[in-house]
């Protein structure tokens, strides 16, 4: 691994760590509030999986939601800020390859997603603990989910010319896809039409696959989820690398 790549990775991690109150503590608190409110209101009324309480069901969904949203926020906000401030020039002038650029931004996003997800999981221990049925499955989905959203953040950060455009990306794409992915419910509780709609949402497969890792139960086959999530990751990686290689909106 080159020093340039390691430095860019370090800088991206240091950037979010320096404002960790905003980038780590705040999203953990939001998820804990979701857990307290939804868990309190719906506990005993819903049992999405056999032998799993609603609060226990909710926890992996919230952990994964935090991982995904924060992975996206890291790469996208870093890039748009650098572009608007003009300090993106400091990573464009040195001999950093487009692959190193991609790897550093996405890895830093994964790290932030995992740090926030871990924080949410730690806080959730006060509410419920159900163990981890298949740790490797859980790890695979959390890592791939974070990588996908880190790549998507990179694409959005490069594409957007102003914060408004990035906000639209976040509010009209990421947020609906996350909220409609079964974080708060099992899609089996939806009408057939909406179940079919959920099956074209890759976020559903990330969260459902992660739940399989935790409970050993899921709405869809974990292998199908793995295939869909893997394809989404591959597609976004190729798209990001192509944008970086061509210098799209970075090098005129």
């Amino acid at each position, binding site marked *: 691994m080159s020093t*340039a790549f390691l*430095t860019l990775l370090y800088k991206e991690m240091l950037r979010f760590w320096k404002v960790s109150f905003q980038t780590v503590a705040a999203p953990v608190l939001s998820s804990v509030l979701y857990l307290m409110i939804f868990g309190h209101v719906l506990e005993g009324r819903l049992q999405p999986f056999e032998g799993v309480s609603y609060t226990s069901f909710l926890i992996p969904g919230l952990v994964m939601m935090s991982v995904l949203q924060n992975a996206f926020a890291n790469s996208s906000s870093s890039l748009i800020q650098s572009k608007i*401030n003009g300090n993106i020039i400091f990573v*464009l002038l040195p*001999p950093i390859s487009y692959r190193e650029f991609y790897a550093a931004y996405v890895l830093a996003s994964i790290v932030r997603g995992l740090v926030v997800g871990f924080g949410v999981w730690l806080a959730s221990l006060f509410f419920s603990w159900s163990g981890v049925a298949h740790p490797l499955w859980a790890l695979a989905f959390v890592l791939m989910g974070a990588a996908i959203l880190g790549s998507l953040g990179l694409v959005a950060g490069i594409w957007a010319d102003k914060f408004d455009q990035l906000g639209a990306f976040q509010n009209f794409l990421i947020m609906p896809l996350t909220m409609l992915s079964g974080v708060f419910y099992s899609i089996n509780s939806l009408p057939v039409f909406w179940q079919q709609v959920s099956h074209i949402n890759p976020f559903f497969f990330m969260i459902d696959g992660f739940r399989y890792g935790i409970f050993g139960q899921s709405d869809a086959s974990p292998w199908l989820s793995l295939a869909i999530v893997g394809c989404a990751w591959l597609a976004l990686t190729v798209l990001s690398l192509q944008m970086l290689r061509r*210098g799209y909106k970075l090098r005129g």
Partner: protein
Amino acid sequence: MPSIDTPAIQVRGAVKQFGSLQALAGVDLEIRQGEFFGLLGPNGAGKTTLISGLAGLQRLTAGSIQVMGHDVIADYREARRALGVVPQELVFDPFFSVRELLRIQSGYFGIRKNDDWIDELLASLDLTTKADTNMRQLSGGMKRRVLVAQALVHKPPVIVLDEPTAGVDVELRQTLWAFIRKLNEAGHTIVLTTHYLEEAEELCGRIAMLKAGRVVALDSTPNLLSRVSHHALKLRVAGLSSLPASLAARDAVLQAGGLEIPFASHSQVEGLLATVREAGAEILEVEIAKPDLEQAFIEIMEGEGA
């Protein structure tokens, strides 16, 4: 390892098109190692586009650029290692202190431990006391000096300064130029763009003038100055209420007791003074104004049409 004969910068047929606008219209330029080179031109002439092409921030529509013999696209790693760029805009990363930024910038160039050189840079640019200060808390002049330090962390043989003294006060400007001169004396090639033509005249050994994306003049600074068609005889006079026909024919200008008469050769001075006296004027003060780069710049730009 490039030989001593390898040009520090070689630009061949550089064309850059932005839609219907041609920012560079076929620029050819060679800058030798160790030169202090000026790149001048009015706003929109293509200076910053050329520097962006050199730094790999813009891709040329046609043509090629090499830095120390390395193509900026095909061999971008070596080309960028050989180049330090001080950008025109006052940009900074608000998350970090000066020292953190310089360490990070060193790492981007593959240098893990660079504190000795960073300390030297901080001292040379009078930033030692600000090393641990966040960039947001620095004045404009200090931010400008940090930009210079960032461009130099990897000790590049070629340094490009894109209007480095814009908004910098006189004292800091002197510090900066003394440091840049030292780097040039140590063998670094310096490429300077500036709107302060007296700076270019004082510092640069050779100058290229750009207009509408083309090089309209490229010569040593003395040769460019010699292209200016006239010196000027500046007199403070008494007893001259209007300009006599003999002086008006020489494009002389009379204004508030001051008379300015352009001339081509010093041998004409005696004759001109006699003409003034013959017109009934008393000469109180005499000054011969040498041609300066500003005159050369204006004449060359006017000569090239609008």
